[in-house]
């Protein structure tokens, strides 16, 4: 069977968008206008590390004494913000040995790497005269973080679902007062962080059919990466839902001699990975679940009612259809065409 196109000009559209975008960027670049971060002080302060850009820039060149003098150094910051200074150095951000960290990049400038030059703030004492994350838009906040966190687990942040929804890094993370053992989160665990927004999934995890999340053996981040990924649904592993599931349930990966079409395409056709009130985390109880696709005739199309239950029908009690069709995820047996063997 050969796939047929329905005529939607996807390739043309993508190519056209790419050309339009390239042209627009070239025009913007040629005009010399560069986007500026929200003003935090006099013009001289803006050419400090552009934390709102996706690239981290160096401190202003020393040829401008006024600009160079806008940085006051960490020792000045901690004279008032002692607690924040201690908390930074207790975390990875404050490890001077690592040249990638705010503390290690430029000697003595750890606070101002993220908060911008502090001279104006020191002179006036006003909080408005320094970069404060709770006064910035989500994307401006994130621009500060991704200036450094731009590869590895964070390489796909830009364009991710959380980025698209204006979720800021500091919605989940706390640089100065984290509560978790790892990841510097605002809550004790990653799951608690996710639950603040993803209430539906949080309720599903509490159902009778569940992954061992509430037992502490799995977290949301066991399957998902909140920073974006190349997989769908921000799944951490693999390139499809099935590949993510098969990373733990490799026995179901196959491929098999006899395939079950619905399962080959998507495990979530039958299972709810967050939790369900049905056995084996099925989205509906068998045989009713199976009857959503298998209508045919004879026993797949039979009504399995309370009379059948009372008579102990092997198509209802216990594992229902899977009492016989045990190899429902796929069979490698020559007689496994209906997954009976």
């Amino acid at each position, binding site marked *: 069977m050969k796939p047929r196109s329905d005529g939607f000009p996807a390739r043309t559209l*993508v190519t056209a968008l790419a050309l339009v975008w390239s042209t627009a960027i070239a025009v913007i670049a040629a005009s010399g206008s560069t986007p500026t971060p929200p003003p935090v002080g006099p013009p001289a302060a803006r050419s400090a590390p552009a934390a709102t850009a996706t690239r981290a820039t160096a401190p202003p060149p020393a040829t401008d004494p006024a600009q160079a003098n806008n940085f006051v150094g960490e020792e000045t910051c901690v004279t008032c913000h002692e607690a924040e200074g201690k908390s930074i150095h207790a975390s990875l951000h404050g490890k001077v040995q690592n040249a990638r960290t705010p503390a290690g990049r430029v000697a003595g400038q750890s606070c101002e790497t993220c908060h911008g030059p502090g001279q104006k703030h020191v002179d006036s004492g006003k909080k408005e005269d320094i970069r404060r994350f709770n006064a910035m838009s989500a994307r401006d906040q994130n621009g500060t973080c991704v200036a450094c966190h731009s590869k590895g687990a964070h390489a796909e942040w830009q364009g991710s679902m959380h980025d698209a929804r204006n979720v800021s890094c500091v919605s989940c993370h706390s640089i100065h007062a984290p509560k978790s053992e790892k990841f510097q989160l605002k809550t004790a665990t990653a799951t608690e962080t996710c639950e603040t927004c993803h209430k539906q999934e949080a309720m599903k995890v509490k159902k009778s059919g569940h992954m061992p999340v509430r037992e502490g053996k799995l977290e949301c981040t066991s399957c998902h990466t909140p920073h974006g990924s190349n997989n769908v649904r921000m799944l951490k592993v693999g390139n499809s839902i099935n590949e993510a599931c098969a990373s733990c349930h490799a026995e179901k990966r196959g491929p098999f001699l006899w395939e079950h079409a619905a399962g080959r395409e998507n495990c979530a056709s039958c299972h709810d990975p967050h939790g369900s009130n049905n056995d084996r985390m099925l989205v509906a109880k068998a045989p009713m679940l199976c009857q959503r696709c298998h209508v045919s005739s004879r026993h797949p199309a039979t009504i399995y009612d309370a009379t059948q239950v009372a008579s102990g029908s092997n198509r209802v009690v216990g594992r229902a259809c899977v009492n016989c069709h045990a190899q429902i995820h796929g069979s490698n047996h020559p007689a496994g065409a209906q997954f009976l063997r």
Partner: protein
Amino acid sequence: MRTRLSTMVAALLLVAGGALAQEKSPASAPQQDVAAAPAASAEFAGVNQIEFGYRGTMYTTGSDEARRQRYADLRDGATVDKFRWAKTTDQYLFKVEADHLGYRDQRFAGAYNNYGKVKANFEWNQIPLYFSNTTQSLYTTSGGTASINDNVQLALQNKTTTLVNAVQLGSVFDLRSRRYVGSANVIYSATPNVDFKLSVKNTDRQGQQPWAGSFGIGGSPATVELAVPIDHRTTELASALEFGNSRAFGKIGYEGSFFRNNQPTFTWDNPVRVTDAANVGGTSAPAIGRESLWPNSNMNSAIVTGGVNFAGRSRATAFLSVGSMTQNAALLPMTANSTLPVVALERPTAQAEARVVAMNYNLTSRPTNTLWFNARYRQYQFDNRTPIFETGSYVNYDSAYTAGLNHESEPFGYTRHTFDADMSYSPATYLGLRAGYTRAQNDRTFRVVEQTTEDIGRFSVDLTGVTWLTLRGVYEHGKLRGTPVEEAELIAIGEQPSLRQFDISDRDRDRVSAIVYVMPASFLSFSGTVGIGREHYPGTNFGLRDNNNNVYSVGFDLVPNDRVNFGVSYGWEKYTALQASRTSNPLPDPTFVDPRRDWTDDSADKVNTLDVSLDLLKVFPKTEFRIAYDMSDARSTYVYGLAANTTIAAPAQLPAVTNAQRRATVDGKYFLTPHFAVGGIYWYDDYQTSDFALGPQPGLALPATASPAIVMIGYRYLPYTANTIAARITYLW
């Protein structure tokens, strides 16, 4: 191939355009390579601690102790828990952790971080799965064979006893399995810009799980429930070389996964046959059944990915993964029944293989502070290259041989193309308005709908950063349509011609969700969420017709200071689905085309969830106190309906399925000194359930007649009520 080439050319155009723009922006501040920060898994030294305790539980009579401990080991006894030790200097951090020492759910972990040079961690995690402690079976499982005492089989075969009586002789056993997961990861930073990564994960799973086998539709027993052996191991290996700085990143890597099953075959005795019989009631009666369990398989992938930042706060990334999934297990003979003809197999091994190619191209741009664009093209190709397998002749259930019955396998494959475009406009600092569009096309082989295309439009509002209000909402409308179906193909396999399997059926979908947080004061917040989804399947008369959900929650948190935290959250969920079918025989029987024999099943799943917690940390001198109550109460119904002019008997409606779980926790700790605390914890767990399929049954052989259709092992959903008290001593240093 052409599609892939065009896509790669388009991606290269993006990169070239962006690079060109970058070179033409001399006004930008001079760039200095700033190495990217390490991956975000900051380990803190924290507080060193260890906890010694003793735990005891009282269950009410008849409680299902297994279900209560499904993924945990809560046996009575001494406990050593929450061991945390770390040593940190300005150069490195070394940390070890241990939980639930000596119990089936114990966990060990360690991490070493030489800042900016090497980062390593390991974990050993044991995850038990306790199905039941009341399972009972005539079978004894050894290796891959489940056998019944020959004397019992002979007695049943000769009808000197009945199954109903014989199953009472079965041994009671614990039905459990366990998963041991060992993993280790190393990141070596060769330079501030270059990382080499290596990770290994090994998962060993052993034990038994509920299973079943069948000897035929009408036999007695037709089906036997069994405890199938599990003994397999999965090894995953990943390595990558990654470069990154403030302007670009690149990565090449390899990922492999190797599944090995030490029990690839499962054989089980027929309770009523000691020997194969050529003819019993018209079919052969085998002495054993034999299944292929999960075959050894491998998955290998090579990955290359990279990204570059451009002017206009733009970033383009590209990802390519090329790999394969292979499985070439030896095929079992068609049947284990010695009285049936041997069916020659057209090949001795499975020769199963799928080539997998995944691509992801993404472009994000924020040319001004108020505008944000994102475009993504994603492709996933599962190219199933397993040769079609034809049986020639066939044996069903190891008992029914049919010469010339040729079953032909269908090696399903598919290719998914997904294009997403989103634009966000921020008219105010804390407000984002986003509109987006997705076009998803799915091309398939060996399915009645060869291609489906879905168009999805979406709009979202995100209001954040306002001190007293956070609002997020999104609406999506999707329309999925497929290519026409050759209805004759459906009829040929005995299916109704107007059936469409729901995963490839035409579908109209609307979804809206919203969350709001209101914080009238810094110590008080209220939250509310709503999620509504509607799925309708037009153009199909059978199968799933509608699938809807309504989810609501409200809550509030009172945090007057960092020592008091009181929170309440209530959620209500309702999931409904409507499906249709027709009770009939296959053509040319006239019932197949008789709409008076149609029936529907209207299912509804309603859940109430309540969480209440109160933390009092040092409110009373030297004490930490926590009270919590969690409840999840679910009720599912399946209601059958008939056509107005029906000719089939009215069904007896199924009883509701209920699952109600409650846990109350009281946890207190008193610090005798800043380093030494004593305390206790009390858990009350209550689970009540009623399940017509998995609840208590009249016996293990059903129906309890001379010819039961199914022999069960007694794996049930049973209630439990448990009171656990634990005393503990915590030492911190």
